[in-house]
């Protein structure tokens, strides 16, 4: 067996929640002899008036602390910190877990603060390796740990530590109740057909389900806004070759990242850049120019551009207004018909042969299209673009109202599955199937919502039947 001393010692840190975009809460974990000391350097509890630097060192093991992380006196985030002292920890070392609000930027900022104050990045699987080597588990146990992390997260969610989460749960609960009640009604009638009938039930059910679908759709839509706050606006720059896409990216990110030349087709792959614009986070994707590419490598890039555009929150469509619109432009306009689009009429320093009217008439009239004239060469129009973006996302769609609930990926998946199940019920109703078929999907819908509220199904249905319906016999 390997000895611990043979390993590189030290305190390690990593984001332990795996793919961060999948979690509403991210955890930065530190393990090692210095873990608590490092945490004391960056964490200030709400109970501390003047930071002692020894708050956690003096605290009991296996406790949770509420406070803030600071880096050089600047607030990074509001966090919950879990303190677990050796040896009863996952790695049998001192372990500190910092629970922050999710979102790559904040999580990374906390992680980097940990590095700055003494931790080193963990290698892939190093926590598990330490646990294994410290005699905490055998090899097969270590392999099963991934599953455990999954399950642990679920419990964590259930604790509703996140206020936003609690809010969504409280709005989902009545919907669940309604689904369960309908199931109970059907099942009670099937169980005791001579006492309880289903006359006209499916019409009522249909109406209730449509109302529920509308509600659920609202939550699902809020997912994109929620994601925008946490992870940035997925912004894709589209345009035919040499319209000035890469110049726009460079102008916005103020560094020469994309290679800018005047040979059409220079950007053959997509390029990503995350920039902060006022309070907004933009995930900018520069794409290969869309045209019927003759070169094979370039054509892969074009396909990728199309794919990117499909998933985008916002499209910046760059038009070279010094050359007439052609088939390639038509292709792009077809693609962005239902999207949020800002059209950038670039090269306004040259003779404009394309007018706003040309574009308006060719983009779908339902599409709210904003037009901005820019000249990348003369650096004109960029401020206007920033203003427009700000209006669109901060003042406009993203004015956070009181009942806006932000939904994370996990919740969204549950919602989408629930919607799917309800659609199945509606389909069964349309097909004229009998009520006993509805409950299969209704109960699935109920269970999916339970993943959001953290409730298990168990004997809910039987209990509801007995509770609400007077059985005969």
């Amino acid at each position, binding site marked *: 067996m390997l000895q611990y001393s043979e390993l590189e010692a030290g305190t390690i840190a990593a984001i332990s929640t795996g793919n961060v975009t999948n979690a509403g809460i991210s955890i930065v974990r530190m393990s090692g002899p210095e873990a608590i000391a490092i945490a004391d350097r960056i964490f200030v509890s709400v109970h501390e008036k003047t930071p002692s630097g020894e708050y956690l060192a003096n605290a009991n093991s296996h406790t949770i602390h509420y406070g803030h992380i600071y880096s050089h006196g600047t607030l990074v985030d509001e966090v919950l910190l879990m303190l677990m002292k050796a040896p009863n920890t996952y790695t049998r070392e001192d372990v500190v877990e910092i629970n922050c609000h999710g979102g790559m930027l904040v999580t990374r900022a906390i992680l980097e603060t940990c590095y700055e104050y003494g931790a080193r990045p963990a290698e892939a699987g190093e926590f598990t390796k330490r646990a294994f080597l410290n005699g905490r588990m055998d090899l097969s146990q270590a392999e099963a740990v991934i599953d455990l992390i999954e399950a642990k997260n679920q*419990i964590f969610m259930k604790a509703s530590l996140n206020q936003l989460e609690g809010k969504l749960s409280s709005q989902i609960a009545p919907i669940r109740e309604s689904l369960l009640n309908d199931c109970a009604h059907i099942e009670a009638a099937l169980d005791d057909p001579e006492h309880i009938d289903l006359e006209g039930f499916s019409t009522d059910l249909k109406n209730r389900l449509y109302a529920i679908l509308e509600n659920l759709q609202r939550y699902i839509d809020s997912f994109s806004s929620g994601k925008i706050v946490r992870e940035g606006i997925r912004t894709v720059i589209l345009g035919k070759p040499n319209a000035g896409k890469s110049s726009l990216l460079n102008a916005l990110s103020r560094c020469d990242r994309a290679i800018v030349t005047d040979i059409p087709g220079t950007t053959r792959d997509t390029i990503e850049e995350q920039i902060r614009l006022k309070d907004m986070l933009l995930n900018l994707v520069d794409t290969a120019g869309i045209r019927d590419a003759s070169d094979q490598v370039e054509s892969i890039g074009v396909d990728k551009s199309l794919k990117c555009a499909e998933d985008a929150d916002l499209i910046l469509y760059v038009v070279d207004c010094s050359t007439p619109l052609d088939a390639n432009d038509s292709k792009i306009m077809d693609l962005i018909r239902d999207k949020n689009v800002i059209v950038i009429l670039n090269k306004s320093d040259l003779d404009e042969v394309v007018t706003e009217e040309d574009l308006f008439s060719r983009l779908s009239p339902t599409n709210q299209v904003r037009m901005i004239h820019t000249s990348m060469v003369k650096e004109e129009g960029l401020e206007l673009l920033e203003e427009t973006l700000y209006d669109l996302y901060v003042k406009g769609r993203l004015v956070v109202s009181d009942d806006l609930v932000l939904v994370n990926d996990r919740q969204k998946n549950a919602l989408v599955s629930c919607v799917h199940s309800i659609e199945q019920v509606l389909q069964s109703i349309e*097909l004229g199937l009998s009520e006993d078929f509805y409950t299969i999907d209704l109960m699935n819908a109920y269970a999916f919502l339970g993943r959001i509220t953290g409730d298990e199904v168990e004997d809910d249905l039987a209990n509801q039947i007995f509770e609400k319906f007077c059985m005969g016999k």
Partner: protein
Amino acid sequence: MAYVEENYDVVIIGLGHAGCEAALAAARMGLDTIAFTISNDSIAMMPCNPNIGGSSKGHLVREVDALGGEMGKNIDKTFIQSKMLNSSKGPAVHSLRAQADKQDYSRSMRQVLENTEHLTLRQQEVSDLLVEDGKIAGVKTVSGATYHAKAVVICTGTYLKARCIYGEVSNYTGPNGLMAANHLTQSLIDHGIEIRRFKTGTPARVDKRSIDFSKMEEQFGDERIVPFSFSTDPDAIQKEQVSCWLTYTNEETHKIIRDNIDRSPLFSGQIHGVGPRYCPSIEDKVVRFADKERHQVFVEPEGLYTNEMYLGGMSSSLPEDVQYAMYHTVPGLEHVKIVRNAYAIEYDCISAIQLKSSLEFKKIPGLFAGGQFNGSSGYEEAAAQGIVAGINAACYCKGMDPLVMDRSESYIGVLIDDLVTKESTEPYRMMTSRAEYRLLLRQDNADLRLSHYGHHYGLVSDEQYARVVEKERLVKEEVERLETVTVGTSKKVNDLLESLGTTPLNSGATLAELIRRPEITYDMLAPIDPHRPDLRMDVAEQVNIFIKYEGYIDRQLKQVEHFKKLENRRIPDHINYQEIQGLRKEARDKLIKFAPASIGQASRISGVSPADISVLLVYLESK
């Protein structure tokens, strides 16, 4: 003083619906079996409702039949009315229910038992279990006789320390005034078995001549009678049926009940047992569902040779004078004469979490239990457990693996799994909603699902089993044929489709595609399907269901696949939960208490979280 000593393989205690199936199964498997009963005249007695089957219970009867049990055959011989419930609904919830001639049912079952080889019937009360070296060794009777046996099956129903109550009257008897079994409980306790007390009830029986049927709605049986047993010839059982009658309670009835509620032993605290929510007494209904203006009362005959009628829906433990007063407010019952009072009954039983899925006690090898003693309710639930307990007692003697069906195989599997993994606080009743995979577990395909078990244990004959195998083959072949045979857009085809109220074809379609349309069934397409083989009705029924609901059936099959993965991860018998790191205390305690046989079963125990299951998996993996 043990003056008699006899030796048997299997002892059955009690001959209600569980005991009968257990005794028959063990004896038919060739084991020397003795069955004890308080009274030979009460074998297979129906002390409550006069019917067999009903929603989900009909499924159980069909499954018992497929395993080679007797209940289905016996009701086919003795029914006086038959109805397929939910026939306008999907095939998964069709459920057969038959009114029985109670006396005839009991007599007929007794005849079968008395003429079964290897089976001895004995009217005597069993007082003690004999346990040697931690294993069951036999029983003793109140008379002091000792019966040595390798296996014992407890099917005491509602008789253990039974007490019947109405108003201020309380009798220490079993149902119908029969003697209670007052001795066995202490012996069970002495052997470490935990006892609890449940309660149930039954309505009054009244004199048919005192009822005014003109004020009631007549309830007829089905025109075409479908038998319960797969071995009964449908043509042989078509007969004239007896009607039931429907009337309603009203505000006046409810007022009488409310005014006298303090005289109910249930509300005054006289009764301590826990009653079932699904089978509430009329006073319970009036109190709990105060906004309901009326409740149904089904007036059902108890048999052909008696004037007694059963008042379904009016179970009660109110005093006799209140019973009279409330019945007299019900239309048609204004001058009714009571023959037997309604009463509540309390009895000793166990929580079945003390049992394995084979219905064997975890603590005492060779000791099995079935029926109402296990905390269930209903004749059919009892029979279902009885046959499993009987088969497994026989398997125990023969050194064979026990019969354990999982939740994806049968309602019996669901029933037993629920009983042994959930701590129910009331008598457990089967419901179709308890079966996760009910589209697969239909009453129409119980033979296809379970006959192989019955055959394996020698309870289903080779000939009968061959018939099932043949049926399976015919269904498969016909489904394949319908998936490939296409019909064109001929006038004949489209005329038929239009006459059936469905859209005509624009291009060719397979027959299967047409059957999937809601308006069409397999039978309807015969005129445009000239090469159709001549199939039995039950085969055609399977073909129709299989094609029509294929999408749903496939979905459930996929779910079953996932379910089986967890179910097949066995947990060793002597696992030490104390040494597993990472289990939460609650989960550890529950796992120790329930001792689940598989990961799947562990996951169904309330208080065991997915995280605990992961911990358990990791632990098992490392072993």
